């Protein structure tokens, strides 16, 4: 009976404890504690078990949220995990890094006045509990299949696809240019949001499941796309987008202006204990510096909070629009503010000042103009409002564009859009090259991890169907 549920009218929202800002600034560990059992069950029981669960509808993965909340409230953690895992290849990761306030929790119908169910935290609790109890085992397909699939990119899209394809018995190879699997999960997202062993246990599990990683492998250098294509029955391009957007203003060529991706990757490598010269020589270490991060997305948030942890003298974040209109998660802004980051809203940099090294950022105050068709207001500078911000290190977190894959892969025939994203057929997710598929950010442009997982799952189904059809056709031809 639902009597165990629907407790939102009597139980207040309660998130897991956050560590104190002072304490958490000192390390790169995650800032949220896990739920204790009772708390998780109690919080899960606040779910209203809706007839139309908008949390579920607005989850890119269509996670069966009300169902696993119900199971959690009931203490049936193994069932809850099984269910959570049936739609999501890495629930504990989504639970940590999804912008729930814009997805499930933001659409929770009890949200008005009652504060939403803490879906992300419960999701994390479910999967962490499963890991702790050893319920998560390597995949053992019911039957092994002879066909193989090559996947370029070990990020969330590639990993999700790999797992799904492995489940049905294909031999799966993943190629990645980095030395570790995980893509942005490993090098893009800082440890205080996503501890690295959380990612590693996932990538390790796939290895244990028989998926073969080819790391430090650059397509175009170590093999061409065509070569991979002949080697495998299908190839998936899931490279993500890595080309950082530039800021075309005077002084952009000065030293100590860095791309966010480089900054974060180095920091993460450092956390792994790797030898990182560019950090050790101070280039990418914010310690003792006045740091200015430009941008208002989640990457910018990661940068500012990394800088805080590296011991920056000051950390400022410049964004053209106001707080309400920033693309990043509100929760992250709050965390950053707690940790001492200064946000300068409505502020547009128009020059970097300095001789060799950047010394100042010159910026204008902005205001929001009249809304366009989509209702979004374009920022415009307020005349004569320019001012300077002292800066020893500037980080540009303005978003990512696709790299030039046809060139990079030495495969000019690969069809890409004018923005550089790989074009695929909507229903088959196949590129213009037979047997070559693409999914994730490289198709949709920079987006959320959860969308990458969704695409990875979808493309896996497409690939399976493609191979099945081919196999059937070959069999028919052989007869």
């Amino acid at each position, binding site marked *: 009976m639902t009597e165990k549920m629907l407790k939102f009218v009597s139980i207040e929202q309660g998130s897991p404890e956050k560590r104190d800002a002072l304490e958490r600034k000192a390390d790169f560990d995650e800032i949220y504690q896990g739920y204790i059992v009772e708390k998780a069950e109690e919080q899960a029981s606040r779910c209203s*078990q809706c007839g*139309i669960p908008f949390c579920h509808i607005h989850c890119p993965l269509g996670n069966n949220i009300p169902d696993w909340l119900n199971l959690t409230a*009931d203490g049936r953690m193994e069932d809850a995990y099984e269910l959570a895992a049936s739609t999501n290849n890495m629930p504990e990761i989504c639970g940590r890094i999804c912008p729930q306030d814009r997805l499930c929790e933001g659409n929770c119908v009890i949200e008005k006045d009652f504060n939403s169910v803490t879906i992300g935290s419960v999701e994390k609790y479910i999967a962490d509990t499963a890991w702790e109890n050893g319920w998560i085992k390597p995949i053992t397909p019911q039957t092994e299949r002879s066909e193989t699939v090559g996947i370029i990119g070990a990020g969330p899209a590639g990993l999700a696809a790999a797992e799904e394809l492995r489940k049905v018995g294909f031999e799966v190879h993943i190629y990645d240019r980095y030395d570790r699997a995980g893509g942005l999960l490993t090098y893009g997202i800082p440890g205080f949001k996503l501890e690295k062993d959380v990612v590693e246990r996932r990538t390790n599990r796939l290895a244990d499941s028989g998926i073969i990683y080819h790391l430090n492998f650059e397509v175009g250098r170590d093999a061409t796309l065509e070569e991979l294509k002949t080697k495998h029955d299908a190839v998936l391009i899931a490279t993500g987008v890595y080309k950082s957007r530039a800021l075309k203003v005077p002084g952009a060529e000065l030293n100590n202006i860095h791309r966010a991706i480089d900054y974060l990757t180095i920091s993460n490598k450092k956390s792994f204990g790797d030898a990182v010269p560019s950090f050790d020589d101070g280039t990418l270490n914010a310690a003792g510096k006045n740091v200015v991060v430009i941008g208002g997305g989640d990457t910018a948030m990661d940068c500012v909070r990394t800088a805080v942890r590296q011991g920056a003298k000051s950390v400022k974040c410049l964004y053209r629009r106001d707080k309400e209109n920033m693309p990043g998660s509100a929760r992250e802004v709050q965390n950053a503010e707690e940790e001492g980051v200064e946000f300068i809203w409505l502020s547009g940099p128009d020059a970097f000042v300095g001789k060799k090294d950047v010394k100042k950022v010159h910026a204008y105050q902005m205001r929001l103009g009249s809304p366009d068709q989509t209702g979004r207001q374009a920022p415009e500078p307020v005349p004569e409002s320019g001012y300077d911000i002292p800066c020893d290190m500037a980080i540009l977190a303005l978003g990512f564009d696709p790299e030039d894959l046809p060139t990079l892969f030495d495969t000019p025939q690969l069809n890409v859009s004018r923005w550089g994203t790989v074009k695929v057929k909507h229903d088959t997710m196949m590129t213009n090259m037979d047997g070559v598929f693409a999914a994730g950010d490289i198709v949709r442009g920079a987006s959320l991890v959860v969308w990458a997982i969704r695409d990875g799952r979808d493309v896996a189904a497409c690939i399976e169907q493609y191979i099945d059809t081919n196999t059937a056709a070959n069999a028919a031809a052989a007869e």
Partner: protein
Amino acid sequence: MTNIHDINPGLPAELGLYNQTDEHASCGVGLIAAINGISSREVVLAGIQALKAIWHRGAVDADGKTGDGAGIHLEIPQEFFKTHVRTTGHEPIDGKLAVGMVFLPRTDLALQETCRTIVETEVLNFGYTIYGWRQVPVDASVIGEKGETSRPEIEQLMIANSKGVDDETFERELYVIRRRIEKAAIEAQATGLYICSFSCRSVIYKGLFLAEQLSIFFPDLLDENFISSFAIYHQRYSTNTFPQWWLAQPFRMLAHNGEINTIRGNTNWMKSHQIRMAAVAFGENSGDIKPVIPNGASDSAALDAVFEVMVRAGRTAPMVKTMLVPESWSNKPVMPEAHRDMYSYCNSVMEPWDGPAALAATDGNWVIAGLDRNGLRPMRYSVTHDGLLVVGSETGMVQIPEENVREKGRLGPGQMVGVNLKEGKFFKDRDIKDRLSAGQPFSEWVQDLLTIDDLKGMEELEPSKLDKAALQTHLQAAGFTLEDLELLLKPMVETGKETLGSMGDDTPIAVLSEKYRNMAHFFRQNFSQVTNPPIDSLRENRVMSLKTRFGNFANVLDEGHTQKSALVLDSPILTNRDFEGLLTHFGDLSHTIDCTFDVDCGSEGLRNAITRIQREAEDAVREGRGHIILTDEGTSESRAPIPMILATAGIHTYLVNRGLRTFTSLNVRAAECLDTHYFAVLIGAGATTVNAWLIQEVVAERCSRGLFGDVSLETCMARYKEAINQGLMKILSKMGIAVISSYRGGYNFEALGLSRALVGEFFPGMPSKISGIGLAGVQQKLLEQHSLAFTTKKPLSIGGFYRFRRGEELHSFDGPLIHLLQSAVTEDNYGKYLSYSNGLANMPPINIRDLFDFKRAETPSDLDSVESITQIRKRFITPGMSLGALGPEAHETLAIAMNRIGAKSVSGEGGEDQKRFKPYENGDNANSPIKQVASGRFGVTAEYLSNCEELEIKIAQGAKPGEGGQLPGFKVTKLIAKLRLSTPGVTLISPPPHHDIYSIEDLAQLIYDLKQINPRAKVCVKLVSSAGIGTIAAGVAKAHADVILVAGHNGGTAASPQTSIKYAGTPWEIGLAEVNQVLTLNGLRHRVKLRTDGGMKTGRDIVIGAILGAEEFGIGTASLVAMGCIMVRQCHSNTCPVGICTQDDDLRKKFEGSPEKVINLMSFIAEEVREILAELGVTNLEDVIGRTDLLHQVSRGADHLDDLDLNPLLVQVGDRNVKNICTLEGRNEVPDTLDAQMIKDASAVFDRGEKMQLTYSVQNTQRAIGTRFSAEITRKFGMAGLKPEHVTVRLRGSAGQSLGAFAVQGLKLVVAGDSNDYVGKGLSGGTIVVRPSNRSELTPHHNTIIGNTCLYGATSGTLYASGQAGERFGVRNSGATTIIEGCGDNGCEYMTGGTAVILGEVGDNFGAGMTGGMAFIFDEKETLADRINPETVLWDPIKNPYWENVLKQFITDHVKETGSRFGAMILSNWESKMPLFKQVVPKEMIVHLVEPLQVNEDTEAA
């Protein structure tokens, strides 16, 4: 086989959705008998007189003159007929002559001659001689047009007992001759031949006229020589108006008022019984009497046929009544053991014929009157000093001088009275049953019955055998989803109850779904509406029985100890352990049939498998195996299961057709079986027992993981079984069936989306209006599902049938579209609304209407010329959602919005705050123009009823037709309690039936009452779509309803069990079309407006509704969505997060609805309607009403279906000249009652406010006395504007039904005599006194003075009655005070307020569901403890002098008002009598009492 079309060619064949088997009849009935058995003229005259006094229980056809039929059954006055014989020149021989009363074709003379020849030939062939034919004189001038056109030639054949046999033999042979004539007539296609009676003892005069014209039409009856010792009379009220002379009653043995709900099952079982039965009783003639029940016979005719054959085979009428319509016996503590043994024996012989029934019957020696087990029809009797027994539906039908009355009584549930004419003796119920039970050694015959606990292995643990992987595979093969297991199964195991849901069903009907739907999804449960009442299986569970007996059904006519050690189970639901035990017990007598088939079987695989199991079953039975086990456990990688419903029905039907079914039990193990609905379908299809073996494996697996806590598997299964048992009883009770043996094999369902061929083969007689999936489709879906389980090995899907899940079942209230609609109405943006509407239109088909498209005109009309939004909106209604379900803000918002646009809102059940009756200062009017009258009658006062334009009688609601409801205490806030006249925090129960509507004539009476209390309001009757609704609607129209609302199955905020939401009722498209067709066919359409609702969301829905016949449209859920509803579907939990369906203060603050939003929705829909009308080339919505030629079917559903044929919905009956829209101006007026005179005589009261006293003589035809008068008082002075007793009206005689209904303060009615049913119904402050006449010599407290269901829904006022009341006294009383001197069963049921003092014995089940008020019972014989229903009340002697004084004062008043001698005696012996009183108080009320029950600190009672 006889078919009514053979008998009466005038009846329309099946046409559109009309099906003649749906027709119902109900009526007034009674008998008169000379106790000494001596014939007299007086008896005949009394019968004629009685018929003149029950005209109001019949109906008049559209032509105003044709009645539904009336008749009288009399002894043959031998001399009267012998005189006629002599006038023809014959001298009659000694002994009785026989008279055949025969209807012959009148206009086709050649055919008439053929008929005569047939009759004569058969008589002569049997060795009797004929005196000749007598043309019965008739006066045809008194009958109506329809009656005249269909009038037969009526003749009497007089037959001599030339063989000189005794009367008994003569009668039996006459019976055989008659049956032979009937057969010969069919063979010769001699249509129009019908034999009313064919007997040497009695003759029946009947026909299609109004009851009062019987003696004018048949002048024979006025002949001084026409004498009789008994008269059984009947007046019919049928739901249809197709003239049927032969359907008039009495039938050959009995006359019946009521309805047999189990007719389909009974008829089926008779097919098996008749074989051995006929052989034993009729030997070489056995072939002649089969089939016992003619094909197409009505329920009453079928009952009569069986009654007759049993009598002819040598049983007495009382014994036959006892066997066919037994008392409920298994849960009755006060019943004598001998009676119980007799019933226990009868139970093993024959399935009861269940349903409301007042019977008057004769076997020639006995004349009896009897009632059904629930006592759902009234039966009052009087015995006179000069030796007459007068029984009838009402008291006062035969006027007897009070001083001549020796006794006045009534029949209680299952009771009987009778006269043995031979012995010249009157028998009361107890006397008859003592005599019957002593007649045979029943106790000996039933002593060695076994129960399940007697079997071996019952002390062992429940077994389980599947591992987890196998379990998952089987679950997948059976089509289960996680939702099934979590939402349905889990609560059953945890709580022993079914889970509740809200907000109706918006998923596709099974036949349109792309998902796998098991067979049960194609079945819709039958439910009662209007023509019979549902039962409350919770509060009245004493009448319910799931007792399942193995191996009964020997020969119905055998007597004696037919079976040794027969096994009787308390329920047909078996656990795996039970089943194993049973198998062991049966041993070699059982045969197990594997119900699976090879997956590589080709296209005929399923068909061949069914043929195989049928043959296997037949062979097993012929080998003498008494128990067949059907199982799908053999499902494996290579074998798929036959749907067990098909397997069961396939074998049941096959065995029935071969007459073998009664030789075996049919025990079904079904993997697919989970919810109560599936169990019900299996049992309805013929299963004796059912075992959900796979579900038990699931429970075992979960139990082993500790998911149910520290509970053993045995307890889990016991709870599950309990939930199913309760659910089964609910399903039975919602169609008014109390006994599972009568439900079994009755196909009490309607198919929705099963192919006609499949239904015809496996479920003969079950309606299937639109055809659909056939065997081929079923096989395809099965194999797909099988492959998911065994080939692709997919895990169970999450399921989305009850709640939306992505990629699962569609829901037409779709998340994003809801948001779109909400922003459309918030921003007043029609463009967004159109996107919403298009979004809906682009979804795959969900509803039947989605398969239609409009035939657009070649030249559309100019949009500007189409009638305005304002005009169209007036046709919109927000359907009844009670304040209680909705929060006050939401409820008012709807009313204000609808009033602003001249449309209508319905109050819903639960009253309305009187401050809303007048417009607010800002001009907003929150008064709902339509006030609902529902079964709970909460807040239904004279004032409430006066403040509206229309009164809606809610017979059923889409979410749970046939069920009652419950407003849990936590939802009863101060406001709710005030409006419902109850106590805050105390649970309120709405009974399943209206206790004043058990039958169609009761509905007519309620409509009459309502039209009296509000002389301006129209009356609407709300029905739920189901097969046969057309004929019900015709009956409702004849009951003077002005509006008929056809609700679809899918509606509602109501909380109800999930299986009720999903599987009861049909889409409104089908019901509406049927109602429109049948009303038109009957010439009744023009006098009623049709309204429909159920998931209407867009202009398209409205126009299709209009085309299918509706004039007005209910928009319910969509209007809630406009106010912010987001389909959380937790309305029953009081946690609505948008503040609509909740009484919680915090949540109510979240309400963001506004009248503007609702108005925007209505305007958008109207605008869309206009656009569609323009496309159709018309200018008014009225132009398309009933124009089904404007629709065509654009989709025939999926490829695997046999056919999906919506043509029956599109049939246009008659031509355009037939009035097929409502032309009614104002309302259908009803005749005046005494009040017209009273109001005239009381002008001084209304003109000058004077006090007055009026005096009249009354009889039972004067109904609702004081009601119209109260309406005038309310209008002039307000409901409480006059002082009590301002106007006193003294009445002498027998007052008609509804005496003082809704009477208000200031009016006092004093009856010297007695009164009928419904005294003080809805009493709103008035005072009613009923006492015997001064001339009466009766001892009042031993006699019945008022009828059934008195004070139903009373809200205030006082009733004193010096005598006993009938059944269901004070039901749903919420404030009236009353003193009576005894009452029948179910007294004070559901009472929530007021005080009842009963100076005498009460019947069974007293105080069931009583949650408020108080009762004092004079428990002299200390029977209360056995009678009371202890669920909600406590009882104890009075311990606080405060309450003693209260009681004493009541009795003092009673003595003063009525002169009660018994009351005076109690008062004068107070010290010794007071301790005999028991004070009955609801448990929930203890803390709310003004004074504690005991003076000391301890307030504990009982």
